[in-house]
């Protein structure tokens, strides 16, 4: 049970790995978890895309709608 991370822990580590290097144990366990878990692979992809898009916020010439689109 404790050998492998839960999806929640995996997501926390995926997020953390965007900001700082993980230690060896975390890295390894995360890799094992990802190899077996499609949900978390999708999460990884989405976190990475969100990270990539983050720097470009505001610089795309969006067609501006009204003030609050919510």
């Amino acid at each position, binding site marked *: 049970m404790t050998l492998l991370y839960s999806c929640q822990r995996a997501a926390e580590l995926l*997020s953390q790995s965007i900001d700082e290097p993980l230690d060896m144990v975390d890295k390894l366990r995360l890799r094992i978890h990802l190899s077996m878990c499609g*949900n978390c692979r999708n999460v990884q992809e989405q976190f990475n*895309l*969100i990270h990539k*898009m983050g720097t470009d916020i*505001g610089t*795309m010439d*969006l067609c501006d709608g009204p003030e609050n*689109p919510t």
Partner: protein
Amino acid sequence: MKKQTESNEQPSAVTHPDTSGEAWIRLRQRLIRHARMMVFEPALAEDLVHESLMAILEKPGAHRGEASLTTWAVAILKNKIADWYRSPHQRRRTWVDADENETESDPTEGLYDERGCYREAVPSWQQPEKQESQRQMMSIMEACLKRLPSQTGRVFMMREWLGFETSEICERLSLSAENCRMVLHRARAGLRQCMTAQGHTTGNIQ
């Protein structure tokens, strides 16, 4: 350099900002929206935007080579906001001023079951390759950012938009490293969920 009074034809090639035009007003509104996401007081946000716009007016030709006036303006605003965060007397204020009950709001609530597994399968996203779908996705992301608890959104923006290192964010906001990680994870998980939901409704994401 020729002064352009009518810039409607090719907004991306404008060499002198038309400060009376609709494009300028839209630019200003957009910058204010971004500034408000980043700083707590609306008046301060307006000041930072005003300073940015003044910088553009002072050097109207300086943005040539940049992709567009918007890109250039946002870059200037980014610098102004980063400077503001780094000015020593601003330390902590951004976080301390926050709505106290915001700590209760967690965008990841209900996402996992008691064993930490996803309650619902995580769908995969279509990678936005065409510019149009990238644009769509960006506007979804911006809308979702506004739905995050404001402090969570701000930490995310400090990290991803301003490009601060997490250690610097922790220091500026007097948060523990653990807290910082938690907030960033919540921000990303919240965005991911919101963007998935929004993507489904617009048909942008598979």
